[in-house]
């Protein structure tokens, strides 16, 4: 049996859960599944069981602990301020087993440097930014922008070019976020850090909130920021988009990184936007996290449909500020990412 070292470290946090069940109120996986195990509370109960040794790991335990987007929506309803997603994440770290879908992602990152099992050559783009030694600013393009949604990388680089900002493009390694989310050691970051150390980079800009989250441990060394923060800080003048836009807060960009205002500031410049019924801290997660949607495609699909449905009722196009949300939601409805909005209407 595992030592449960990660859970032991936050034992007090786990004990603080009174079991009140308020965290069921708006948890998307509970909404879709409806069983105790689908809720944040159920997963904390499992953490109790693992800690006390009353249960041992098996496929159902792994499955339950992985069936959570770590979106943190439940924490908004918890009156005991329990860090629910941290507990679930810690429990994942104490597990030995991995779901097949997750093993595939991890193998792929180890072999190809991306989670999609694609040859690294296929990421090549015509725009490459400038040589690294000539700038202190880097743009980190994540795997989503490099392989699946190249248009977003193109849009980001086009914005930098239009604004005359020289950026070095870092796009040859996965940030390792999916591995971290799954609960395994992320060895990617130290690889990237070594490369960055050879350059003169002081600031790193991300269009992917998940990549940015992976870089948090390096935030003393580098200034790290989301592209919406960078752009909102510039004196931009956007043309009227002429369409009804509705902004979808990514759980990572919003609840995890606390970035709500900047994307809104940009959208206001583009002629105004509307809000989802639940927005900012209360925003609903779309299920687009890579590890989650790979292992639980049906639940992730239903989560996206809910969001698309509300946008459709309001006759609006969804604006994302995360390539993961973009890639996922686009399978169900009209979506544009914030980098595309800025690039198009600058």
């Amino acid at each position: 049996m595992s030592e449960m070292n990660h859970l032991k470290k936050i034992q007090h946090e786990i004990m603080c859960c009174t079991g009140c069940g308020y965290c069921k109120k708006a948890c998307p996986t509970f909404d879709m599944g409806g069983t105790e195990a689908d809720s944040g509370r159920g997963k904390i109960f499992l953490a109790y069981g693992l800690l006390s040794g009353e249960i041992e790991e098996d496929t159902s335990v792994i499955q339950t602990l992985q069936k959570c987007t770590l979106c943190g929506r439940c924490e908004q309803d918890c009156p005991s301020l329990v860090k629910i997603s941290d507990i679930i994440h810690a429990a994942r770290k104490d597990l030995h087993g991995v779901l097949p879908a997750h093993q595939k992602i991890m193998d792929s990152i180890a072999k190809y440097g991306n989670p999609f099992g694609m040859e690294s050559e296929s990421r090549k783009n015509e725009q490459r930014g400038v040589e690294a030694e000539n700038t202190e600013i880097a743009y980190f393009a994540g795997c989503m922008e490099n392989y699946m949604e190249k248009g977003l990388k193109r849009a980001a680089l086009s914005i930098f070019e239009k604004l005359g900002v020289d950026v070095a493009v870092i796009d040859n390694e996965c940030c390792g976020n999916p591995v971290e989310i799954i609960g395994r050691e992320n060895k990617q970051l130290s690889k990237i850090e070594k490369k960055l150390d050879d350059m003169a980079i002081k600031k790193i800009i991300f269009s992917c909130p998940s990549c940015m989250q992976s870089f948090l441990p390096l935030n003393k060394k580098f200034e790290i920021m989301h592209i919406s923060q960078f752009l909102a800080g510039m004196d931009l003048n956007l043309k009227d988009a002429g369409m009804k836009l509705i902004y979808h807060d990514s759980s990572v960009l919003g609840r995890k990184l606390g970035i709500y205002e900047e994307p809104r500031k940009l959208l206001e410049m583009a002629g105004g936007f509307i809000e989802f019924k639940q927005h900012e801290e209360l925003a609903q997660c779309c299920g687009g996290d890579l590890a989650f949607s790979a292992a639980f495609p049906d639940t992730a699909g239903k989560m996206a449909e809910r969001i698309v449905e509300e946008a459709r009722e309001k006759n609006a196009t969804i604006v994302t500020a995360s390539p993961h949300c973009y890639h996922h939601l686009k399978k169900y409805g009209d979506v544009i990412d914030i980098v595309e909005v800025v690039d198009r209407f600058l």
Partner: protein
Amino acid sequence: MIDGAVAEEIKGVVGEDNIISSHAGLYTYGFDASIHHSMPDIVARVHNVEEVSKIVRLAYEHSIPVIARGSGTALSGQSVPIEGGIVLDMTPMKRIKEIRVEDLYCTVEPGIIYGKLNEELAKKNFFFPPSPGSGDVCTVGGMVATNASGMRAIKYGATRDYVLGMEVVMPDGSIAHFGTRTIKNSSGYQLEKLMVGSEGTLGIITEITFRIIPLPEHRAISIASFDSLEKAGQGISNIIASGLLPSALEIMDSVCITAVNKSMGIGLPECEALILAEVDGEEEVIKRDIKLIADICKESGAGNIEFTYDKDRMADLWRGRKGVLPSLSRYGEDMVSVSLADDMSVPISKIPVAIKKFQEIAKKNGILIGTYGHAGDGNLHTKVLINPTAEGSWRHAENAVDEIYRVVISLGGTVSGEHGIGISKAPWMQIERKDSLAVMKEIKKAIDPKNIMNPGKMMQWHGSIISYLRYPENERNESS
């Protein structure tokens, strides 16, 4: 353990997708919001009365325990299957079958969440008033089975007062209808009321008809700060004695105030105790009454008094009040709140003396107790804060609980005003109701001769309540 063939039959009734038999799934269904835990053998998510009836009949034939479960927010272990068996997850049965404002009733399935039902009723300017603190997550079936109530009980009463009729699957699987859809009914035994507070020990409720009433037009709240709990308690008694009927009259001590401010940032006035009073009704009446309440509080020694008609501020204050229980978990660095001795009721005039005694008991036993509650109807909540992993903490807590309940009983009170008995209050209910215990046991035996409905709880519980603990192993050993 239940027989594999029986499990297959249950699967045949609800379908594979509605069966939970995995290790993780069963483990999570072994909890409620109490300190207890025990695993069921199988969980079936039921969708209609026929499914319930078939499964209960199987359970009856094979003498397997059956435990109905709503949202699992019970605080005393009522929904914990201590003898294993079949847990029936009632939450898929969540339809509103009828809302008839012209007849003042609604008929619903038991799995609907209280808050969701009221959202629908509000569209017709009606409501179902009991308002438990857990109303956004608990089911109405669970409310009936525990006779839940809340802050508005002082004016509107408890769930019991709104139950007109119901459909019940009896322990042998047969289907019975109790009560009526009429406001009045003197037609024989009031069996629907017998089911209220039965905690799943007499049958499975599959449909309920509730009386509903019009939503009040306006509300106002006043908050008065006091420099002692006794003065606040006296304030409560004075308000009641004045003949006013507030829609809520709450008390909170400094431990609770600090906890709520710390974890929810509501901005309650920091003081030794506060009274939160709500009045509802027509505009002129509430303006007059809220002023009268403020005057009485002042005469009773209140310092600062604030009142508000603002909907957002009122919602915030209620959110703060509802969050007291869980936010107490954040009071101390290594202490957490555990569900023990949480909802005793005393005659209203005895509140100040009860609170004082509780504090003495806490001090003596080296634990911390937060006191708050629906003081207007005599219902107090105390929250025991302990470090569940510290040596001796459970023993101290149990001693304190024992002393608290003995005080409550000696003051002419009851060990549970609203949350029910389950396991954690059973020994003291048995003391409080010693001369009706035999009748309760006879009723149970007559209705459930095979003792399969939520067995082992209430009058059937024996021994220390520090059993089936959900907390990790080291503490469990210490208590046994």
